[in-house]
């Protein structure tokens, strides 16, 4: 009968962890040249103002021929992300729709490559781009999330207006339940709403109260 002593387990596990760490470092080192080359390629195709934005904030905007603006960013947690800005009644641009894209999962493409592909595609043929994007999930919640990235989200009135417009234009394939949770989680994270809120209805009530005040 074999007895496994806790000490041996700890030593084995420690070795396992060290090996995993070494492998992760090797993978990262192997990918580093590809990441650098992708970034160089992206920067070479951006205009000066886009380069400045990318280097300072990790995102840049692209204007399609229709005049619609898109924000392209790389988020370490979800990967490349594209947001469309729609002009509100007050002439302020608001990010209302988010698109998530990725390269095939079996190949870890650098985010800079993916973003450059979509920059070129948006500039080249926005309609096709949207047809492709809308055939997949549109994450409405990211509009709110993105607004945090651009400037501090200080009022919920934007969300209430955005929500009523979004409800009419939502793609039926949207994952609404997930979206609601995202909205709440991120607003709570950014301390825009009290933690007691547990539903989108609560959130919208809170927004309406804010508007009436």
């Amino acid at each position, binding site marked *: 009968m074999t007895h496994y002593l806790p000490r041996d387990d700890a030593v084995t596990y420690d070795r396992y962890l060290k090996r995993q760490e070494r492998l992760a470092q090797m993978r990262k080192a192997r990918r580093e040249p*590809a990441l650098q080359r992708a970034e160089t*390629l992206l920067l070479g195709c*951006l205009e000066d103002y886009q380069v400045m934005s990318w280097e300072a904030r990790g995102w840049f905007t692209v204007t399609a021929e229709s005049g619609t603006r898109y924000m392209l960013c790389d988020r370490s947690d979800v990967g490349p992300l594209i947001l469309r800005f729609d002009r509100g009644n007050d002439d302020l641009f608001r990010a209302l729709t988010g698109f998530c894209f*990725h*390269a*095939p999962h079996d*190949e870890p493409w650098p985010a800079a*490559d993916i973003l450059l592909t979509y920059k*070129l595609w948006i500039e*080249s043929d926005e309609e096709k781009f949207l047809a492709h994007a809308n055939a997949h999930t549109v994450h409405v919640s990211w509009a709110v999330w993105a607004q945090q990235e651009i400037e501090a989200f200080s009022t919920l009135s934007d969300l209430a207006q955005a929500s009523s417009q979004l409800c009419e234009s939502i793609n039926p394939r949207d994952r609404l339940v997930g979206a609601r949770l995202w909205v709440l989680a991120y607003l709570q994270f950014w301390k825009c709403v009290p933690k007691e809120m547990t539903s989108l209805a609560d959130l919208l009530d809170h927004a309406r109260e804010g508007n009436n005040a």
Partner: protein
Amino acid sequence: MGRMQVMGATTGDKEITWLPDKPKQVDKARKAFDEHIASGGKAFKVVVEQVTKRGKEIKKFDPAAERIILAAPVAGG
């Protein structure tokens, strides 16, 4: 001189250059272009006008293009 950059997942992009009056170089670039398109990839010509740089999708190899990007395959998420 024309320049074509082929995006690559693991090694980064590869660059192929050609002189429009050198048929061998043009053929080599055209072959890489056609293979990329046949595999479902997208190709864009980078059009530089004054300070703007904009993409224009192309389906056929253009030997007169100054810069072509053979883009990464992407899908909605």
